[in-house]
């Protein structure tokens, strides 16, 4: 991700705070789309952005009907940007819902992962599981004997291959591949296709980014 280049350039032009938020949301979106597991919900970031979105929508609403062509054109630009930001947020949330649906029991029963959900996501997950459970019961499961010996929990494939880029200089920069004796060095700028589990810690620390 060349967000850093982008920021560098924007810094040079003294562009204020909003930029960082959009860049962060963009990176969170890309990471959420690429990672096999659900990542921590960006609570503060989303709150700030939703507030800005609300302000812009309000602005468009109050200015609508203004016949001054200059204002009108500004509104077009604001709306165009608004659609871009809304798309990012929507796609980010939907990528999360996909994983919440897929790995629901795993998320619910793993405290460190459950904490990555926002309160509405957690309540969606619980209600969804409840609905599924009643549906299966009603359809065939009623009166079934209990069964042992197999886990019905769907877990993310943490060994799934991902593409990633080293974005920082890392002190302890050896990535080891679990279950093998393969290891390799992470140098800033490197791009790898590798098992997620080998770079997971670096990703959660922000030293390596999913692309």
């Amino acid at each position: 991700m060349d967000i850093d280049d982008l920021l560098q350039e924007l810094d040079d032009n003294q562009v204020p705070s909003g930029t960082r938020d959009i860049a962060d949301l963009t990176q969170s979106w890309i990471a959420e789309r690429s990672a096999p597991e659900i990542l921590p919900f960006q609570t503060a970031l989303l709150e700030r952005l939703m507030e800005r979105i609300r302000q812009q929508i309000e602005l468009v609403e109050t200015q609508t009907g203004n016949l001054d062509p200059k204002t009108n054109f500004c509104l077009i630009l604001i709306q165009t940007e608004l659609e871009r930001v809304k798309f990012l947020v929507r796609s980010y949330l939907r990528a999360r819902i996909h994983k919440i649906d897929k790995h629901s029991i795993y998320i619910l029963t793993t405290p460190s992962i459950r904490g990555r959900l926002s309160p509405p996501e957690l309540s969606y997950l619980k209600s969804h599981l409840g609905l599924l459970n009643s549906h299966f019961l009603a359809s065939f499961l009623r009166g079934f004997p209990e069964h042992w010996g197999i886990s019905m929990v769907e877990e993310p494939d943490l060994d799934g291959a991902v593409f990633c880029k080293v974005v920082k200089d890392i002190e302890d920069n050896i990535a080891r591949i679990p279950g093998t004796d393969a290891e390799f060095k992470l140098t800033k700028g490197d791009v790898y296709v590798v098992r997620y589990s080998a770079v997971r810690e670096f990703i959660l620390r922000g030293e390596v980014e999913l692309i």
Partner: protein
Amino acid sequence: MSYYDIDAILTDAQKVPCTFEITIPGLGYLEGNSNTDIKQGTRVELPLWLAEMLGVSQRLGTEQNVVTLDLPPALAPRVQNALKANPCTVDLRSLASHYYSLGERILGLLEEDELVDILSETFKKRAAEIADHAHNPQGVISSGGEFLKGLDENERQLFKISHESAKAIRAFLSDRSNTKK
């Protein structure tokens, strides 16, 4: 292990030849006779989900074996040799729809050290061939129909995903250049 994964469940349905080492009451239905016993020495093909659990003691080397497992025909030495000689000419699909997954499971049950390398090499070589076909815009029609028909399920997915990404990029590039005029 994915409980709800349809391909995992279909993999589990693939069969392995088993020989019963003891007589078991009331299991005759495994060879198609209900209400009879299954006799010691009987050979039947059982799906993985059953064979695996009955055969696991063989691998553990403990207790008395209930059944002894054999290599499924799809992984027999004859096929292994064909894969070593010319991996791209073997019709894997007719051997087993989930060929590699079957191989992985058999590797967990039987000592077949060479099989890992054969399967890995086969998969690599065939993947390269799949990539070539997938990037060909005419794809299936022009060439390699036979080869593509013989792909196992995993390879089919690989072909599908490569074909679709190639198509998506082409669409993006030509779409953009065309709207230019």
